[in-house]
């Protein structure tokens, strides 16, 4: 099937594409959207120790180059990689402002689906230590990330190198099987329940049970918005 926007499949392909872009001395401004036919756990760069001593499983565990928490990629998730050369003004925004700008772009794409969501202006705080699942990307909200009625469904991260900045985003289009993530990483099933309670997805927000077509439509909207933003 020919996609009307650049769509790659699978985390290994995404990782390879990201690394190839970052390895270029003068990377071109470009992006790619991703879907994941097969589930995998993608850890933040500081979570390497999670991957140690895990039993063998048919769900691979990989470590990405950016920070943030663990993500369970799969058919429910739309991923985005955006590489911006160091010479571009977007790469010279502050970390906070760059997250806010990317969050704003993605939230405007969601308006096409009549989804009104909130872009976090700062990291969410709480006095209740059980409010967040800190080891999971979708277990807490950071600046620029997107929620609806307090439930997160878009996560962001980035890698800043001297030649450019790689921004990555993950958009939950369908409910994520959180129990698979918790089980794979040896975390309590109570965290799966908390993740379920703290997240939503595009399918739920637009009130459909069959989300076929949501992901490609959203991918197209994001692709068009990026073209407008960077033209």
């Amino acid at each position, binding site marked *: 099937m020919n996609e009307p926007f650049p769509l790659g499949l699978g985390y290994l392909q995404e990782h390879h594409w990201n690394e190839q872009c970052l390895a270029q001395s003068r990377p071109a401004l470009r992006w790619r959207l991703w879907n994941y036919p097969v589930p995998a756990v993608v850890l*933040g*760069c*500081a979570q390497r120790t999670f991957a140690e001593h895990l039993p063998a499983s048919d769900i691979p565990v990989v470590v990405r*180059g*950016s*920070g*943030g928490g663990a993500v369970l990629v799969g058919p429910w998730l739309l991923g985005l990689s955006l590489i911006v050369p160091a010479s571009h003004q977007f790469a010279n925004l*502050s*970390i*906070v*402002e760059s*997250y806010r700008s990317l969050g704003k772009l993605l939230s405007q794409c969601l308006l096409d689906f009549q989804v009104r969501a909130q872009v976090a202006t*700062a*990291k969410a705080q709480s006095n209740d230590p059980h409010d967040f699942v800190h080891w999971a990307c979708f277990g807490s909200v*950071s*600046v620029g990330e997107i929620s609806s009625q307090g439930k997160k469904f878009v996560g*962001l*991260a*980035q*890698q*800043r*190198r*001297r030649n450019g900045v790689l921004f990555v985003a993950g958009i939950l289009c369908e409910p994520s099987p959180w129990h698979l993530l918790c089980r794979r990483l040896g975390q309590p099933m109570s965290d799966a329940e908390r993740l379920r309670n703290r997240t939503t997805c595009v399918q739920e927000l637009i009130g459909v049970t069959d989300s076929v077509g949501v992901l490609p439509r959203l991918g197209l909207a994001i692709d068009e918005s990026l073209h407008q933003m960077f033209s």
Partner: protein
Amino acid sequence: MTDLVLAESVWEDVGPDVEALLDGWHANPGELVEAGQLLVSVVLIKSTLEIRAPSTGSISEIIVPTEATFKRGQVLGRFVPSE
């Protein structure tokens, strides 16, 4: 001797209580490195950043170890340029 610090500009708009994580040192104390060589990786607000050697030289002291957090302006280590 040069203090290795995460540039002030990186902390723009970051709240006063936010700390960064020292993700890893990429050179050992005393090891000769070239200008621009990667010395240390850090993570701030889910963003990975790099601190590179300002000149040929070597790290003389590691102050913030791997997996420790640090505040804005905190010295992470010290670097001695080669003569």
